[in-house]
């Protein structure tokens, strides 16, 4: 896959937008998913993921071809998400509540639409709980945890994406894991 991507990037560097469309197709789900788990809101996740790709396109000339494209696009996306989280920090609690109710309305819809088997409903609730606990993590732990356990990337890749020493990445993952453990131990 990487060779196709490299070829497409050469075309994009010449300004070919169709080639860029192929790259977006290849990475859109992963980038969107990371943004969604970072931000906890579909609309915001879509905005952030789109912006990440647009920035990648605009800065494609500065893309170092020795790097994996995924590393680069994840770096842009996580930076954008972290910026967004920081910007809305003052009403952090309000936002948390809003996304909480968002989730609740989703449940009530599901519950009223079709009676789901109890197990499935349970797992929906569990999913929402886990998502909410991830969202409670400070953004620096959150990005490390999302990349590690949702994208299942190696510590080395995460250290490249976040542009941090390996030791720092480990510390963040340890702290994130520890915080999640405390929140999820009774689940």
């Amino acid at each position: 896959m990487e060779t196709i991507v490299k070829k497409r990037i050469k075309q994009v560097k010449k300004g070919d937008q169709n080639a860029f469309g192929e790259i977006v197709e290849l990475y859109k789900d992963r980038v969107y998913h990371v943004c969604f788990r970072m931000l906890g809101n579909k609309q915001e996740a879509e905005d952030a993921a789109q912006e990440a790709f647009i920035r990648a396109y605009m800065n494609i000339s500065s893309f170092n071809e020795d790097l994996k494209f995924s590393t680069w696009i994840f770096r842009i996306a996580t930076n954008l998400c972290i910026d967004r989280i920081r910007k809305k920090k003052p009403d952090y609690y309000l936002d948390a509540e809003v996304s909480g109710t968002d989730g609740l309305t989703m449940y009530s819809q599901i519950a009223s639409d079709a009676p789901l088997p109890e197990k499935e409903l349970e797992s929906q609730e569990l999913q929402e709980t886990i998502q909410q606990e991830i969202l409670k993590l400070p953004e620096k732990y959150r990005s490390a945890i999302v990349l590690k356990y949702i994208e299942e990337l190696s510590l080395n890749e995460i250290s490249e994406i976040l542009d941090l020493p390996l030791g720092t990445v480990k510390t963040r993952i340890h702290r994130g894991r520890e915080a999640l453990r405390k929140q999820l131990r009774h689940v």
Partner: protein
Amino acid sequence: MKCPEQIVEWMHDYLDGDIDREDQQKLNEHLQSCKECEAIFYQLKKTITLVQGISQIKAPPNFTENVLARLPKEKKKVSAKRWLQHHPVLAAASVFFILMIGSLLSTWNQDHEFSVSKQNNLVVKNNTVIVPKGKVVKGDVIVRNGKLKIEGEVQGDVTVINGEKYLASAGHVTGEIEEVNEVFDWLWFYMKKTAKDVVNIFESNKTEK
């Protein structure tokens, strides 16, 4: 029993797959004998399983189209190039056409000097060509970048390219008279001539056979 200071650190190292044998042994030994640490270790592993088990979600529909729609407009040059790459035959044809027009235009541009076809009885005075009264010029007369005055008779076609033609009342032309002044007229004339030449080549080939 007192828990070793680094016990939690060892757990994390273990979960990172980054623990040395000695530490792992110490960790195992302690976990076997300490219920509290065992519980913490179990909770950590469960947490990871829970987070990993969160369902994968896909980007919303039309995601790629929406991204492309937000990009600045593509340079014409690139889309033309891509089009050419996808239509090689048309590409070859258009390249040929462009080259042909190009060479014709450059011929036109270089072609500002006065010239006239060589025939008996033609008189040339400063950029003006005269067919004198009472004289007969045989063959096609072509004048470029100059004037042509016809007071006698031309037995053939007359073409004036980028110039003027004056036909006196006594003057007479047996063939066609054509004046070419604009680039496109000239191109048209040139192409007709080329076509005629091509046809002539085929016809002479036929007669040779």
